């Protein structure tokens, strides 16, 4: 690449988008799947195993595995203290997903919180992706 810094930024944003979207969609699927069961989980391990094999929960888990792998990839070059706040923009999206996809009530106060999170994530997004020497270079 002719511009290593620009290239690092670009791949950081692409992988970050995958991390955020797979997490929000995965959690939405899990929430929807658990609500379909209509009752709280007891202490029995078999109840957890049974919950995992319902379609929405299984899809949620598949998306969360994608989330995990994309996040590991991102952490191979990016700071943890960069990744954690920047991917927090997913929490703002989660409030929106809870409202628009799952029909949950989201108060004005929660919307304000979601806006603050988005602003904080955007601010951290302007800092250096990597501040440690790290690994092979």
């Amino acid at each position, binding site marked *: 690449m002719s511009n290593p810094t620009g290239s690092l930024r670009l791949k950081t944003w692409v992988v970050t988008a995958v991390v955020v979207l797979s997490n929000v969609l995965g959690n939405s699927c899990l*929430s929807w799947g658990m609500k379909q069961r209509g009752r709280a989980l007891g202490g029995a391990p078999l109840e957890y195993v049974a919950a995992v094999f319902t379609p929405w929960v299984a899809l949620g888990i598949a998306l969360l595995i994608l989330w995990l792998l994309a996040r590991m990839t991102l952490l191979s070059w990016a700071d943890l203290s960069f990744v954690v706040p920047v991917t927090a923009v997913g929490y703002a999206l989660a409030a929106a997903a809870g409202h628009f996809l799952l029909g949950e009530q989201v108060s004005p106060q929660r919307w304000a919180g979601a806006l603050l999170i988005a602003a*904080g994530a955007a601010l951290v997004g302007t800092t250096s992706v990597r501040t440690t020497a790290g690994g092979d270079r």
Partner: protein
Amino acid sequence: MKWLCVAIIVAATTASDALLTRRMKQHGEIRDFRLGALGRALAAVARSWHVMAAMALLAVSFFAFLSLLAIADMSFAVPATAATFVVETLVARCLLRERVSARRWLGTALVTGGVVLIAL
């Protein structure tokens, strides 16, 4: 019960992320994004106690999160467990030796403020 789940999730997630970050930094920057190469890189990384312990902690966190979702709305569960942001930034600064600039702290503080607002 809700807050016990939250505490377990925060502690397990932070420990898991610290271990994952340390292992991924040992591996170094991933540059080849073809599926085969990416799969080989991640498979090589996975063969270490760091990653296995991180996965075990993540599983603890995940099942605590499933339990939480069964007794609370997602718009409570997701923001409440976001206390991990502060704890993880401190761990990144103190254990992983990352340089957390004033701007990064401010951004993290805004995120935390947003989370408190949501969780109240």
